[in-house]
């Protein structure tokens, strides 16, 4: 055996250890991967050997490789082997590897249960600590369940309990009384660990921990440990919203702390909690204004500090105040605007958050201009996206409350659309444009003109940028408010130039092309310019027969619908033209005379236009949900029975009849109004399509069409009709900052206003709040809702999340009940008693031996009881427990005697020791 050991050691000398591995990797920078794979082979070789120290060496190397991103889960079994070593050195390596590579779904964890239990009950606190630290990284439901009783009262163990609770919530109730005890533990380490755990628990389910408030309050006023104070104060921040009385009580000590402490971290957390308190009680406090003032003042000091960290935190806290007390923050507008200029992105982002509350009618334009300048300078899409959404947010808040000039806002949006953003932002801009136009009637003419211009410039050029999403809005707006367009035909032409667009945008284009077409047609038809209409029809037919080939269903459907509509129109117009032509040809032959002017109601266009009539109103976001379910409508009922059931029924016949009937009526309806295209037409369109395919260089010819050869193609390319670009505006949008001109006019206005102000300076009190004299523009505020519903109706929240903390929502004040909790608590109680008594026993001598025996009986009894009730525990679980307890007791007795001999160094370490043994010592006995 000894020989083997020596041999192993000698062998080990020549193996690579971790240092060699690291060095090797550093020396092989060029072919690192190759070197590592070579090392992996070595490691596998080493793992195959019997010697544990060789294995541990291999595992240590694996741990390093794991950090570099190599999967080492295959070595899980070897890691467990190393963990099971009796040597602390090796064990440590094993547990480290485990904590780095295991996770709660590892199958191997089953193997570790007993080992970890042994470790937890070890007499060496460091071995227990080792196991706990490692366990904390990969604890699973099974482990948590099996070990929840073994995790004792060491400092690490207290923290560990949180992880146990997360995985096995049932353990919370029986363990809670002891956890509560630990809050007043004499060892500050244990105490702060307990505070830590309770804080984590309470953060997720604060209402269950309100009963602990007095304990924490005492701790807060007496403790000097800043770390713990911070935790407690943070916890109070979570508790106050639930209990306003607590908040009132807190204000005073917190303000005292704010005044007295020199630690910035503590000061900051105090302010945070005071803010939380003030938010929760809002009013009804006699001097809460003073507290706010104090907070804001202190925060100003933080923000003005040269330390960027404090500046950041100050702004963060300010934004919390802003929600409830915007006025007190507005006083520091200068400071916040200054922070917008900061070189630090994090700080600028925080300042942006605050801007929301800073704007007024007066300074909106100025602020937005500043932001636009930032936008030009900023790099990094995150910040730009944030800037964009903030601009839109501050402009649109409260139904565009602060916007005095909507032309300016539209220009800003258009400018924004021409910048580079993340892909999602185009949609935001588009939605905003549509919203403004729908709500603000007065701006439509201007906006539509801008949109038409955008369509002119970008339809044919835009690649996959955000502009496409904006074009979506532009196309829709031009179609919807076509009557505001100056030159609808021009817009129609430019819209027809679209090429490759995403599905939803293309379908909107198709739809709105028809809308505009209807409008244009009306004009021509009234003037009897049928040729023009036919020309437009051809244009559209060409484009649609392209789009009809799209792979996207939506596009296909819309294109085919449009095609049919245009075909119908074409026919009717052709008929009309022929009629007019014949009229002109043979005037003499006329039997009936028609007036030369066309009745506007009798046109094809008017029929077409009826498709698109109707005013659009903004709809409240919840309107759909508010529509009451009609009586007699059962949404859960089957519309038609599932097939299997209906097989045997006689019903199918009836339903069949129903369908046949409806089908007939429908088809007859169609035949009346929409004749199918005739043979000739189909032929014609087929020819047209063929011709077009030939001309289209992008069209991939099928392999079976042999008649198209190369020469033909070359000729065809020359024949492609090139549409002339007829642009009224230059291709490049000049004057990038068109929105500036509004600002300057605004400034002029201001100047003149100032002059006038000087005269009546005295009469004006708060100039900031005074509304700017400008055009009063009506913004539609009302939103459509079903009758009887109001916006403020409460809505049930369906946000159910798969959150482990949900399970921890246990009312701890209720007495323990149920199956698992009760017996365990019974068990805990006598155990504690026993410990107490056994301790007394060692102190007092043998006098109480009988008593403790009695208790032991009780314990065994309780355990038996538990065995019958707990389904999950193994059969002899109770016995094992009893045994280990016995062992523990013995060990403890030994230790006690040692203590008496004065071998132990300090009281602290001895207390740690005992805690490792799971003895909950009442604090009195230590004092």
């Amino acid at each position, binding site marked *: 055996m000894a020989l083997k050991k020596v041999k192993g050691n000698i062998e080990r*000398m020549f193996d690579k250890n971790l240092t060699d591995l690291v060095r090797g990797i550093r020396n092989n920078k060029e072919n690192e991967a190759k070197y590592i794979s070579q090392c992996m082979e070595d490691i596998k070789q080493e793992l195959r050997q019997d010697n544990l120290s060789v294995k541990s060496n291999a595992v240590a190397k694996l741990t390093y490789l794991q950090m570099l991103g190599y999967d080492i889960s295959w070595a899980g079994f070897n890691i467990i082997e190393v963990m099971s070593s009796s040597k602390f050195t090796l064990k440590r390596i094993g547990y480290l590897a485990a904590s780095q590579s295991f996770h709660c779904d590892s199958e191997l964890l089953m193997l570790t249960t007993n080992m970890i239990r042994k470790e937890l009950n070890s007499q060496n606190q460091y071995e227990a600590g080792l196991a706990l630290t490692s366990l904390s990284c990969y604890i699973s439901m099974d482990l948590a369940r099996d070990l929840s009783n073994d995790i004792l009262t060491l400092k690490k163990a207290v923290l560990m309990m949180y992880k146990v609770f997360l995985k096995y919530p049932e353990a919370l109730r029986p363990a809670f009384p002891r956890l509560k005890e630990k809050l007043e533990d004499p060892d500050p380490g244990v105490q702060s660990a307990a505070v830590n755990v309770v804080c984590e628990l309470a953060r997720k389910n604060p209402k269950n921990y309100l009963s602990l408030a007095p304990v924490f309050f005492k701790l807060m006023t007496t403790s000097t440990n800043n770390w713990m104070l911070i935790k407690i104060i943070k916890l109070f921040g979570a508790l106050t919203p639930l209990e306003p009385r607590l908040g009132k009580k807190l204000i005073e000590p917190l303000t005292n702390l704010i005044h007295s402490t020199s630690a910035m971290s503590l000061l900051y957390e105090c302010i945070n909690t005071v803010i939380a308190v003030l938010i929760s009680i809002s009013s009804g406090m006699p001097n809460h204004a003073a507290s706010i003032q104090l907070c804001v003042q202190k925060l100003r000091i933080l923000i003005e500090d040269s330390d960027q960290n404090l500046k950041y935190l100050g702004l963060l806290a300010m934004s919390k105040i802003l929600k409830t007390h915007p006025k007190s923050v507005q006083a520091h507008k200068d400071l916040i605007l200054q922070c917008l200029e900061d070189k630090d992105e994090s700080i600028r982002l925080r300042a942006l958050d605050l801007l929301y509350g800073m704007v007024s009618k007066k300074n909106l334009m100025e602020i937005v201009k500043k932001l636009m300048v930032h936008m030009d300078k900023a790099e990094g899409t995150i910040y730009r996206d944030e800037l964009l959404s903030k601009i839109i947010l501050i402009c649109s808040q409260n139904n565009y409350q602060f916007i005095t000039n909507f032309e300016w806002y539209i220009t800003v949006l258009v400018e924004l659309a021409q910048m580079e953003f993340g892909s999602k932002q185009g949609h935001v801009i588009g939605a905003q444009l549509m919203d403004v136009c729908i709500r603000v009637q007065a701006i439509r003419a201007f906006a539509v003109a801008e949109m038409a211009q955008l369509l002119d410039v970008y339809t044919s050029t835009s690649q996959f940028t955000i502009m496409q999403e904006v074009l979506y809005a532009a196309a829709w707006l031009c179609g919807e408010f076509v009557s505001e367009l100056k030159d609808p035909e021009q817009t129609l032409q430019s819209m027809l130039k679209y090429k490759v667009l995403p599905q939803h945008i293309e379908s909107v284009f198709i739809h709105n092309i028809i809308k505009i077409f209807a409008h244009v047609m009306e004009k021509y038809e009234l003037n009897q310019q049928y040729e023009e209409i036919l020309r437009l029809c051809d244009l559209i037919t060409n484009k649609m027969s392209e789009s009809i080939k799209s792979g996207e269903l939506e596009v296909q459907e819309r294109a085919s619908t449009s095609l049919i509509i245009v075909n119908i129109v074409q026919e009717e117009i052709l008929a009309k033209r022929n009629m007019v032509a014949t009229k002109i040809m043979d005037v003499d032959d006329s039997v009936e005379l028609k007036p030369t002017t066309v009745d506007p109601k009798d046109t094809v266009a008017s029929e077409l236009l009826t498709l698109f009539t109707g005013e659009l109103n903004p709809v409240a976001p919840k309107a759909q949900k508010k529509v009451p379910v009609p009586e007699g409508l059962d949404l859960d009922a089957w519309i038609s029975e599932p097939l299997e059931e209906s097989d045997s029924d006689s019903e199918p016949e009836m339903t069949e009849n129903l369908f046949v009937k409806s089908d007939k009526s429908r088809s007859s309806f169609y035949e009346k109004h929409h004749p199918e295209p005739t043979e000739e037409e189909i032929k014609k369109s087929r020819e047209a399509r063929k011709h077009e395919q030939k001309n289209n260089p992008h069209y991939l010819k099928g392999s079976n069409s042999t008649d198209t050869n190369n020469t033909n193609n070359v000729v065809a390319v020359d024949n492609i009709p090139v549409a002339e670009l007829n642009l009224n505006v230059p291709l490049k949008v000049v004057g990038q900052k068109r929105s500036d001109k509004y600002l300057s006019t605004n400034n002029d206005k201001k100047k003149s206003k100032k002059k006038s102000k000087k005269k009546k300076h005295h009469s004006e009190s708060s100039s900031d709040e005074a509304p700017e004299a400008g055009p009063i523009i009506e913004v539609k505020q009302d939103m459509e809702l079903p009758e009887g519903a109001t916006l403020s109706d409460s809505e049930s929240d369906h946000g159910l999340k798969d959150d482990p903390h949900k399970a921890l929502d246990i009312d701890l004040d209720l007495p323990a009940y149920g199956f698992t909790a009760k017996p365990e608590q019974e068990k805990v109680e006598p155990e504690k008693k026993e410990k107490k008594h056994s301790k007394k026993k060692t102190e007092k001598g043998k006098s109480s031996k009988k008593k403790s025996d009695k208790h032991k009986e009780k314990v065994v009894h309780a355990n038996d009881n538990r065995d019958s009730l707990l389904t999950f525990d193994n059969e002899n679980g109770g016995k094992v427990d009893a045994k280990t307890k016995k062992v523990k007791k013995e060990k403890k007795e030994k230790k006690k005697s040692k203590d008496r001999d004065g071998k132990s160094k300090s009281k602290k370490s001895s207390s740690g020791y005992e805690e490792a043994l799971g003895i909950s010592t009442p604090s009195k006995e230590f004092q």
Partner: protein
Amino acid sequence: MIKAILVFNNHGKPRLSKFYQYFPEDMQQQIIKETFQLVSKRDDNVCNFLEGGSLIGGSDYKLIYRHYATLYFVFCVDSSESELGILDLIQVFVETLDKCFENVCELDLIFHVDKVHYILNELVMGGMVLETNMTEILTRIEDQNKLEKQEAGIAAAPARAVSAVKNMNIPQQIKDIKLPDLPQAIKDLKF
């Protein structure tokens, strides 16, 4: 809760990674990479807090970091941790490392990553702060080192001797000895 602790150098090479929530290895590497990209482009005189980093947690999470000479120490924490408190904790961590390694430098972290892990385990456990008092941490580490030494005893002496020899880095020294490049010399011979 602390979600992850990362230490990497100015080039983004990981020197220590500790995740308190499970991520597969490739994900871990991606997180390290992304975090490095976020952190490294920031000046030294800006604040030490960062939001985002899409991989690790949503808006509730923050990156809190400190930059020492060649190393970044990054903690990813949620809102239950005090920002300034974590900054102090990083300082405590680094000072403890300094005490344990005597003038800690990047090389110490490279070659003794296991020890760094043991030290970290005394500060943070399972994502929760265990101890912030440096003397307390140091005594615990000392105690455990003693345990290791006791166990090693005489048996480890030869191994230690070998590692000492290895540390002299003979292969490197042999490599460093400059010999004339024989194949080249042969080629250069002209007949």
